[in-house]
């Protein structure tokens, strides 16, 4: 069976876009990714977007961008959405439902939206009355997972801070990064407490911007000159309150990860580079454990060992600086995770951070670690 490929990727260079409309950001990244691929609007027959897309499902943006899709999907799983979109697009292409699928993300929480953590509280959600009256914020709902992890495994704030430090070293080499400066463990620990044990520098940045990916069939990819990226496997899962029995020391990655690895026929030890969802430092620590890069409870020491630092760490991660330092457009980090993995597999990461990368893992998450979440994990491969 023909394996679909990622043939185009584009990250919006903007991090503060006060004059842009959200639709305009989607269109700019769509055109950017298509230009990267060497394709045109007329080539697109599949369109994928999530709840950051303004207007009516995929329809308003299809009109605004100039698409006439005969296949579309609007899977909404927060920041994990776009990783799922790539997997679902590959499935659709395998089935012959479309040949060129465009996936877009765009938003402007920095200059045009509500405060981070205040959006998306649906009063019709069945859990609303059992959570909203208690004043949950997004950082607080991650802090609950961090506090429990500390109590069970002895994880420390300095170990969490090591995740930020590694990301900041990478961001220092990215001219587009929102926080383009290396920070120290001490700076993380002395930054204001947002929701303990999470400090301000344990949190991702809040940025405007977006990104887009083009997935195409092998026939289409062969006609293009750009180096493409193989989609080897993708898995996704939901973890929720589990009828009041949820254990906050693990995430939905314990299911999405093995599913992606099995489809790809590889193991965590085979991965050369990982784009890990980094809404908060604790998100990375739990993903490292749940995806099998280290034993449960050892994510803190693993991060503190320098393992995440490119190019020589045991598992170089987020070489663009990630959501923690570079970009977290629309409060949704999945798209930028895919884009940096594509750069690594094309050999287009920053030269000082370029890994000899045959296999990359992309892990996205949506929702919160403290209540309910979706995870989507993907294994990508370098084309030969």
């Amino acid at each position, binding site marked *: 069976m023909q394996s679909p490929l990622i043939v185009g990727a584009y990250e919006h260079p903007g991090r503060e876009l006060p004059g842009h409309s959200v639709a305009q950001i989607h269109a700019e990244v769509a055109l950017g990714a298509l230009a990267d691929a060497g394709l045109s609007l007329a080539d697109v027959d599949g369109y994928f977007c999530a709840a950051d897309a303004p207007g009516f499902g995929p329809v308003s943006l299809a009109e605004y961008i100039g698409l006439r899709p005969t296949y579309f999907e609007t899977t909404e799983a927060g920041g994990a959405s776009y990783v799922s979109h790539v997997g679902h697009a590959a499935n659709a292409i395998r089935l012959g439902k479309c040949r060129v699928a465009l996936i877009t993300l765009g938003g402007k929480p920095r200059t045009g939206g509500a*405060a981070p*953590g*205040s959006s998306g509280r649906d*009063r*019709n959600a*069945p*859990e*609303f*009355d*059992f*959570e*909203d*009256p*208690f*004043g*949950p*914020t997004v*950082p*607080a709902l991650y*802090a*609950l*997972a961090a*506090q*429990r992890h500390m*109590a069970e495994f002895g994880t420390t704030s300095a170990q969490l801070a090591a995740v930020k430090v590694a990301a900041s070293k990478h961001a220092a080499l990215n001219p587009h990064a929102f926080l383009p400066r290396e920070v120290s463990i001490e700076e993380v620990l002395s930054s*204001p*407490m*947002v*929701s*303990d*044990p*999470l400090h301000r520098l344990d949190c991702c940045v809040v940025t405007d911007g977006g990104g887009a990916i083009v997935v195409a069939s092998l026939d289409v990819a062969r006609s293009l000159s750009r180096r493409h990226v193989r989609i080897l496997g993708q898995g996704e899962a939901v973890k929720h*309150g589990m*009828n*009041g*029995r*949820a254990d*906050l020391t693990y995430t939905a990655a314990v299911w999405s990860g093995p599913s992606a690895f099995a489809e790809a026929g590889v193991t965590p030890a085979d991965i050369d580079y990982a784009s890990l969802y980094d809404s908060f430092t604790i998100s990375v620590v739990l993903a490292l454990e749940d995806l099998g890069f280290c034993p449960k409870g050892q994510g803190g020491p693993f991060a503190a060992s320098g393992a995440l630092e490119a190019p020589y760490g045991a598992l170089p991660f987020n070489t663009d600086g990630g959501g923690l330092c570079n970009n977290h457009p629309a409060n949704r980090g999945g798209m930028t995770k895919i884009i940096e993995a594509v750069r690594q597999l094309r050999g287009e990461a920053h030269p000082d951070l370029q890994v000899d990368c045959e296999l990359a893992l992309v892990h996205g998450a949506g929702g919160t670690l*403290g*209540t309910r979440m979706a995870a989507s994990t993907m294994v990508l491969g370098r084309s030969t």
Partner: protein
Amino acid sequence: MIAPLPAAGLVVSAETRPFWEGCAAGELRLQWCGQCSSIIWYPRTHCPECMSRDLYWRVASGAGQIYSWTRVARGLGVWLETRDYLLAIVELAEGPRILTNLYTHDDQEVAVGAAVAVVFDTALESGLAIPRFRLAS
């Protein structure tokens, strides 16, 4: 004296009303499944474990322990002016882990595993109440 935390209005539906009315009456009521004996959290009209609609209410002990907690520096919405409040997940003695707030005195140390007991705060508009917890002395 501990200052009460904000208590916003509730969107109470018929399926959850017995829970909130219980809080207003000073009772922490939980829902049990008549078929598989699971305790159901949060309340609804079917058992998510076995599909049964044969459910009944029983008053819980109101005792529990801290599963996890965090001190939130600053809230949002009706909590915007509230500083350094405690959000927690309490594991009830009967089993379910529920999101709530903690009340403490200055000399009390909050910790995972600490014993807590339920208190009830009147919610705005509805006249119903919500369950919060204090450290058991």
